[in-house]
């Protein structure tokens, strides 16, 4: 009997395994699709990313016409006319909304050198 049970088990086990494998595969497939969706959403929402090109040129190149002022602007306020409004801290230094040093045009700067930095 034991043998018979074993035989029966041996007969049913592959079937069960097959069903389990199919189930796993279906589940895996769904998971893969989900993962792809999640991955894509993640890419879209956080990275947006990437057509393989570098996002900006540093230093900027006039011959490529890729420079955009938002590449160097801090998180600045704007007035109703769209002009940049720069706030100063208690020490009189220009800062953006995130506390980063900017010049009075709102460009991100390195305080020591005064160089304009990439956003």
């Amino acid at each position, binding site marked *: 009997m034991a043998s018979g049970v074993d035989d029966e088990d041996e007969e049913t086990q592959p079937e069960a395994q097959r069903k389990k494998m199919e189930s796993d595969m279906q589940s895996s497939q769904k998971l893969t699709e989900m993962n792809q969706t999640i991955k894509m959403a993640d890419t879209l929402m956080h990275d947006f990313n990437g057509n393989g090109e570098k996002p900006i040129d540093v230093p900027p190149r006039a011959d490529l016409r890729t420079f955009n002022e938002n590449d160097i602007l801090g998180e600045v306020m704007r007035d109703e*006319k769209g002009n940049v409004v720069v706030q100063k801290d208690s020490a009189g230094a220009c800062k953006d909304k995130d506390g980063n040093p900017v010049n009075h045009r709102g460009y991100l700067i390195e305080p020591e*050198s005064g160089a304009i930095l990439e956003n």
Partner: protein
Amino acid sequence: MFAKKELDQNGEIPNPFCFEKFNFNGHNIMGDFDYTEGKPELMKSKQGFFMDKKGRRVNKHGWMVLASQGHIVDVSGRKKFDKAHMQADGDLHKLLNYQGRRYDIKDVMGIFEKDDQSKICPQKSNKGLVDLLGRRVSDKGYLLDASDNVIDGQQRVIFMKCDLKAGEFPKIFPFTVFNLRAILGDFDTNSSGSPILSKGRDGGFIDCQKRTVNVRGYLIDQAGNIIDTRGNLVFDKAILGKDGDIPPVFRTGLLKDDGTVSNMSDLMNEIEKNVGPTTTDDQANRPTKRGQEEGETSMDSQMEDTPANYNLAN
């Protein structure tokens, strides 16, 4: 990005970046859509937000935007336009070409399938790259005529081939600031307002400070390109008029010049007043070579403009 020594006394970045500071490629900030009869099919989320077919947030004009902020971003997620520089309904302002004519950026953009990386997929044909409507396009996705000039959907030339750099044309908005004084030599003018210039050793013109200028009084380098007082390249010689003049849009008061026009509404009113809608006549007058466009624009027909006018005013 810029060393301190490159900045001017007001902290502004050097030419040409200080007036070409709104560069973008229209396709890099446009969502990915299916098209029906040339019209994009926008999708809506359950919450009612517009989405493209990759699930990215777009506004009703199809521009990709940062959720809750409304700023336009590119495919890399980098902000390209602040909401304050957009129209109230989320669209981009009309741009200006070198002649001062207004145009809609979408009118010069082909329509394409995009790949997984959101790059446009132009199709190849016997006439070169084409968009989904079979129109000839550049690798940047702009509509082209047979001479590779950038045209709009009605075949009107918006930018000539020589105006392009790396396939991109300058993105000039009504709020673009341009400092004409930075490229003008130092000279007196005669009674008709023309610059009084001396001849240099090499036969070219020089200003009062012995700097090389062209016949219109603009500072130039050895190749004839227009430079500013700090020596930065401002305009390539190729885009100058046959008399060495700079494109009309930069010398006819259309652009902001540090306080000459007080606000955006004034600017828009000025443009509405000065530049009427483009008519079919424009096509007939379409220039084929740089230098032939002088006298063909609405702005040029209204005023005789030389750098000297600005010099006197200043």
